[in-house]
């Protein structure tokens, strides 16, 4: 592949919430700053020249950037499909009207439970009401392409079905994301990670509801019925890559760790980083050999290397949340 299919770009480290599992908490703690408007446009020029299909903007909260709408318009004008992951708390009527005028924009609103007490325990007191107010504005204005996203944790696991119902009530898609031990997720791992029984139940639920989006992140659990829904393999450094607020380039948003810093988008060609970086090469050549004999290998290819790395310090071990691999990992430990 000559370029990534999509790029996750954490365009700001600033956020008005303090979610306990925040993927970007480490980036924020490093305080490396963010690219200015001119630098952002230069990055977009390069991604367009590489023919990257989609940029997924996240953060932090992207709408905290005063220049963000112009950045979005610029990317869309270059033929790039844009998706924004937002906490929804800054959505106003006038913002929705501006977003409605854009072409090629998808929104993903994060909400971590179907009930206020559950969500607020993760995303902060009072946030459920503020997020739902934003969702209602998008729904009232009939914004066509948005989904509700929940990071599935032990805290909100029992509300998955209710969360799906909530999304249906607003006429939008449900997206369930995998909780990973990256960023702030690392310190919350033991409290939030799913039990084996919950992982099994989730696998069945996803199999029964194939319309639910997952960002292809549960492939270690994916049932047969979802086989055709995605590539069912890690796309890091092959299909995707991530850009941090300060321009650091990483193989994936879940591997924004100094050990995987592949280059600096403000000083190097992004295309060269993608093509030639030893970090990317390492990810591309990665094979989880211990999984080769498994009859599900073609469904997951060993699962998520980021989860394996943060839990075992190795990229080459099976996804620790794979129910079949769990026993083998115990032996390794």
């Amino acid at each position, binding site marked *: *592949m*000559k*370029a990534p*299919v*999509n790029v996750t770009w954490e365009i700001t480290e600033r956020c008005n919430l303090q979610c306990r599992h925040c993927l970007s908490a480490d980036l924020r703690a490093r305080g490396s700053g963010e690219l200015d408007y001119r630098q952002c446009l230069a990055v977009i020029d390069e991604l*367009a020249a590489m*023919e990257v*299909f*989609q940029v997924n903007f996240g953060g932090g909260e992207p709408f905290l950037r005063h220049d963000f709408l112009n950045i979005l318009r610029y990317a869309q*004008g*270059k*033929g790039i*499909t844009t998706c924004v992951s937002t906490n929804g708390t800054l959505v106003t009527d006038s913002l929705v009207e501006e977003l409605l005028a854009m*072409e*090629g924009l*998808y929104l993903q609103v994060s909400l971590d439970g179907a009930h206020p007490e559950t969500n607020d325990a993760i995303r902060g007191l009072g946030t459920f009401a503020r997020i739902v107010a934003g969702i209602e504005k998008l729904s009232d204005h009939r914004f066509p392409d948005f989904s509700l996203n929940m990071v599935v944790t032990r805290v909100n696991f029992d509300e998955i079905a209710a969360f799906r119902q909530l999304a249906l009530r607003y006429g939008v898609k449900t997206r369930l994301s995998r909780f990973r031990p990256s960023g702030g997720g690392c310190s919350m791992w033991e409290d939030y990670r799913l039990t084996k029984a919950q992982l099994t139940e989730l696998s069945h639920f996803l199999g029964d509801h194939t319309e639910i989006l997952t960002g292809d992140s549960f492939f270690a659990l994916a049932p047969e019925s979802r086989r055709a829904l*995605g*590539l069912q393999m890690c796309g890091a450094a092959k*299909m995707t890559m991530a850009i941090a607020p300060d321009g650091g380039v990483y193989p994936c948003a879940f591997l924004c760790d100094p050990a995987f810093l592949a280059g600096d988008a403000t000083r190097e060609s992004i295309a060269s980083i993608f093509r030639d970086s030893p970090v990317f090469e390492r990810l591309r050549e990665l094979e989880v050999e211990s999984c080769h004999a498994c009859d599900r290998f073609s469904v997951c290819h060993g699962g998520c290397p980021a989860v394996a790395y943060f839990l075992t310090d190795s990229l080459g071990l099976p996804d620790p949340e794979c129910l079949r691999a769990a026993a083998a990992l115990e032996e390794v430990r």
Partner: protein
Amino acid sequence: MKDYVAPPWVRVRQEEFGLLFYDTRDTKLTFVRSGFSLAAPSFSGQERRLGVRCEGEGRERAVGRLLEKLEAKGLVVAVEPE
């Protein structure tokens, strides 16, 4: 042969193997081993028409069938030739 354009929800680019289609509605990728028989439309420009380069009647028929399959998947739309 008809002309084909990529609809607004589809992105296409040239790869070594042929064309790579990306359906933004469901983020599905479709790998089309078309070699150099099909050319992707301009990535950033307004022109959405696919280029067709094939020599020989047999090859033209094969490419025509391929385009019909892509049309059935909603990845291209037939339009009147220019």
